[in-house]
């Protein structure tokens, strides 16, 4: 099996180490990976703004990039939900593009689900001697139904202490353009999340979506908070 990486635009631009983490873990497990260089974005920012035509345009490039991929893995819940659930609907029923999109949708996997449900592994040889807590990003949890897989992977990390986060399934307040359109609410929701983080005494908050993490990291930096925020793939790459 050869895994094609769908790294997502935010990871590509801001946190390539997340994608490097995915590659490192797959390497460790003896899974070959490649990176379709034509990939840019899944189109979600346009789609979420109600600009369906623009989303379709970007979506076409996504189809071009991944048309020949056999297995596609992404370290993201929100981009994956976009590509699986909404992307096909951007193209007319019966069209070739729709068929392509549906075919690709069937080959897409979120990273933690890929490890646990497809590769059937939970111990990926990671070691991280710290206390962490896990935040359920909305699209991963409710969009894709991925709840146990990240927790099982964390439980298998050597020397890791993972404590539960209160209201772990409550939205962090990012929400795409919501973060800049309604900053008051976005901030208040983020503060709630950080407050719950503080109560765990964890050194790191871990999540499966870089979007949540950029929002929370941004707030953490402002508050001289003692904790950091890590992507699951970064953590699992540590030895």
């Amino acid at each position, binding site marked *: 099996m050869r895994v094609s990486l769908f790294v997502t635009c935010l990871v590509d631009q801001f946190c390539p180490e997340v994608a490097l983490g995915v590659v490192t873990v797959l390497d460790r497990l003896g899974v070959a990976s490649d990176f379709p260089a034509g990939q840019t974005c899944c189109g979600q920012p346009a789609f979420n703004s109600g600009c369906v035509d623009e989303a379709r345009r970007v979506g076409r490039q996504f189809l071009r990039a991944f048309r020949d991929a056999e297995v596609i893995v992404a370290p993201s819940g929100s981009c994956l939900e976009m590509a699986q*659930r*909404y992307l096909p*609907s*951007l193209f007319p029923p019966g069209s070739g593009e729709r068929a392509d999109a549906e075919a690709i949708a069937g080959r897409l996997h979120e990273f933690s689900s890929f490890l646990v449900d497809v590769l059937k592994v939970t111990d990926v040889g990671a070691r991280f001697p710290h206390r962490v807590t896990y935040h359920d990003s909305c699209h991963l949890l409710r969009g894709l139904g991925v709840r146990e897989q990240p927790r099982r992977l964390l439980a298998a990390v050597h020397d890791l202490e993972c404590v539960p986060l209160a209201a772990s399934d409550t939205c962090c307040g990012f929400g795409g353009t919501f973060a800049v359109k309604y900053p008051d609410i976005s901030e208040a929701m983020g503060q709630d999340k950080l407050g719950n983080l503080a109560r765990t005494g964890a050194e790191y908050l871990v999540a499966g979506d870089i979007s949540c993490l950029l929002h929370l990291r941004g707030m953490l930096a402002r508050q001289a908070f003692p904790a950091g925020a890590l992507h699951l793939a970064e953590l699992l790459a540590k030895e």
Partner: protein
Amino acid sequence: MALDDQRDLVLARVRAALGSRAAPAVASRSGVTSESKPLPIAFVAPGAAPGGMVASFTQAAEEAQAMVSVVESFDAARQRVGEILASEGVGRVLVSPDAADEPWRCGSFARGDDAPTITGQDQTIDVRRVRIARAEAAEVGVTAATFGLADTGTLVLCASPEHHRLDSLLPPVHVALVQACDLLPGLPELFDRLSAEQGFARHSAITFVRGPSRTADIELTLTIGVHGPCKLFIVVVEEVRRG
């Protein structure tokens, strides 16, 4: 009349709205469509619980702050009603004909009200005004219940010439009488019965009653007794006799 025209307008708009063929682009996450077959719903059958439906009904009703007594015979039921009225220390008791007639025969408990019995056919007085005044003045209303639902401890009252709606509503205390054989497992069984007996055609009001009235509108603090009765007593009789 100008006001009548809107019937055709509303119907035309609805039909036009339904006529549009456009299907939603994205399938709803629910995965359910109107073409899906109805799923059989297995209600928890309280009859299976220890003690059967009477026990289930009693427990569920008590959870809703009703005070439930289970007695063996109609004589014992009558006695129990007397005890309840004595303990409430009341002077004015209203008894609905369905509780006064067979098999309950609780008419002798009616007191504090000298006006003659009213029937719905009475044309000579303002029935409504008298009925409201009478029920408002009463301290206890005693009525029968047509059914009980064992899963939620709910009584089902059916308005009729013998069952007066205000008797279970205006007085601050309601005493309800129900036969164990009229307890049903739950809503599906109730609607089956009502359908078979044309309940909706026969009764202008079928009222479910579960516990006394309540509100939590201030600070979500539960308070028992708002506009409806403040206390609900239920007497369940195990003896089988049709009224």
